[in-house]
């Protein structure tokens, strides 16, 4: 072989676009491919993906470990449930109201909480879940106490003279998918904007970010509120899908589930959260793992993630994505 000759490189095709097409087809056709139980599992995964997206903005991009997501999830669920039961409002009204109420609730909670750092912040956010549950239990005139809200109507849309109701698992799947896709795009837009870069700067070094003129306090507060809005939207879907909301919507278990999704999928990565919710919620739901076993597995996952597998599945996803794209 002479020196002028180059080694013929194995041509690697960029398979990313075909893969994306396959994923879109699978996402759209899922209800017709699997059983009803699979569709149900996917809906649960999509519902939990929303608060997880919010948490990813907090944990993955801004570097604030929060356990309060379940509280805002519960507030969103109660807001949507109460509106639908009491006034029979259309779905999009409930959705927006749930997002706004959760986001608004995050303001007075975030102002004191964000003054705390590391462990104290975690404990304070944990407190919100406990106090939220107590309020849901005891403010009987509004929340109906331990009985919770039941028979929440199916989501319906009203556009001028047209109106239709989303009934059945398959239709609800498409609704959840649409909300999930919009939310994912919203996160993408936030992360790609200059604001997203400032968030990462705060995560990496808050003092340095502050000294470079990033208003860190406002950023943290606004991200806390945005993450609460995502949780509220998730709560709205949850209320409409399960048609029941009880004070147990405010529980530590949900916060832990959302943390597992974000950290397991890979914090600070949008595809990680999507992947994490499908893997940890969808798969365990589809396998019909008993709740205790699932929580034992979650606990084990947390330990593994903390000590051995710090970045979750993010490196694997990245490597896979580069490999099919022909990038070495």
């Amino acid at each position, binding site marked *: 072989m002479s020196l002028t000759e180059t080694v013929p490189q194995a041509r690697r095709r960029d398979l990313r676009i075909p893969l994306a097409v396959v994923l879109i087809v699978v996402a759209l056709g899922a209800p017709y491919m699997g059983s009803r139980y699979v569709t149900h599992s996917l809906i649960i995964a999509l519902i939990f993906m929303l608060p997880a997206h919010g948490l990813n903005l907090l944990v993955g991009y801004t570097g604030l470990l929060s356990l309060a997501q379940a509280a805002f999830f519960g507030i969103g669920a109660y807001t949507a449930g109460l509106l639908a039961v009491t006034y029979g409002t259309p779905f999009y009204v409930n959705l927006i109201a749930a997002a706004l109420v959760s986001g608004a609730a995050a303001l007075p909670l975030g102002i004191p909480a964000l003054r705390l750092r590391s462990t104290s912040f975690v404990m304070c956010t944990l407190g919100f879940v406990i106090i939220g549950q107590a309020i849901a239990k005891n403010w009987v005139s509004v929340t109906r106490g331990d009985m919770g809200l039941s028979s929440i109507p199916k989501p319906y849309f009203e556009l001028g003279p047209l109106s239709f109701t989303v009934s059945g698992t398959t239709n609800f799947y498409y609704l959840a998918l649409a909300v999930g896709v919009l939310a994912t795009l919203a996160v993408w837009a936030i992360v790609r904007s200059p604001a997203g870069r400032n968030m990462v700067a705060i995560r990496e070094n808050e003092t340095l970010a502050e000294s470079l003129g990033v208003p860190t306090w406002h950023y943290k507060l606004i991200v806390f509120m945005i993450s609460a809005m995502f949780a509220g939207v998730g709560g709205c879907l949850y209320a409409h899908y399960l048609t029941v909301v009880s004070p147990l919507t405010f529980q530590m278990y949900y916060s832990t589930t959302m943390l597992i999704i974000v950290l397991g999928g890979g914090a600070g990565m949008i595809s990680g959260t999507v992947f994490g919710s499908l893997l940890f919620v969808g798969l365990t739901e589809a396998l019909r793992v008993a709740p205790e076993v699932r929580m*034992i597995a979650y*606990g084990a996952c947390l330990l593994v993630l903390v*000590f051995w597998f710090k970045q979750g599945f993010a490196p694997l996803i990245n490597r896979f994505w580069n490999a099919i794209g022909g990038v070495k």
Partner: protein
Amino acid sequence: MLSTVLEQVVNGIVTGSVYAIVAVGMTMIFGVLRAINFAHGEYYMLGTFGAWFAIDYLGLSYEASIVVGVLATIVVAYVVGQLVMRRMVGAPAESGVLATLGIALILQNTVIFVFGGGYKFFSGGYIEPISIFGFSLAQQRILILVVCLVVFVGLELMVTYSRLGMAMRAVSQNVECCEVVGIDVPQVVLRTFILGAALAALSGVLTAPVNVSVYGGMGELITFKTLPIIIMGGLGNVRGTFFAAMILGIAESLVATYVGLQFRDTVGFATLILVLMWRPHGLFSTQARF
């Protein structure tokens, strides 16, 4: 009227003693590890379950069941300490939170998985009431008070004079210097952790006859009550923890009587948030320890 208030205060002190024994372990663990042990209440639950198992399945007496409960917890704590807690030395605060949350999930749900999630009846203990100064108080409650005092005097002596106590104080002040002078930091952490877990188990076994029911989720509630206490007491402050536990115990029992039983369990977290806002270093410490 006055006697009801007094009775509630006495009840509160007993509850406070229970919390104090659990919380002091958590605060000592924070001292050496700079991490909050979110699984601490689970050792309380394990101790209670161990004792319940000893009485119901092995037919042992209550006294023997105390030993079984505490020993079983020590074994579990040793395993957890070796596998997890030692790794947390020098790790960032977030990983401590996540790891201990993971342990809490594993311990709690393993117990529920093995023994079922329902409430169980705890049949041991000295529940005969005796009257002192016109109050009638169950013997068990007096036992709790006495044990609490003994534990705190013992800890105070241990922390001040014993080798382990001095090593613990040294580690809580400066980990690097400890390594320089040859203190085996992971070993100190492991021992402190096992001591804390054993105290939590002891507290659980002592309270079981008063609470009567035993269930898998009971540890979580205790963890949630212990967090405000250790913050109020000042993290790593043994004496402060004692007084903070008494304050919370009395406050809870007064709120349960005069405001409503359903608000009892929120008192702790409401106090926690208030204390974090105004005195983040605790009510009794003069300066922040972290």
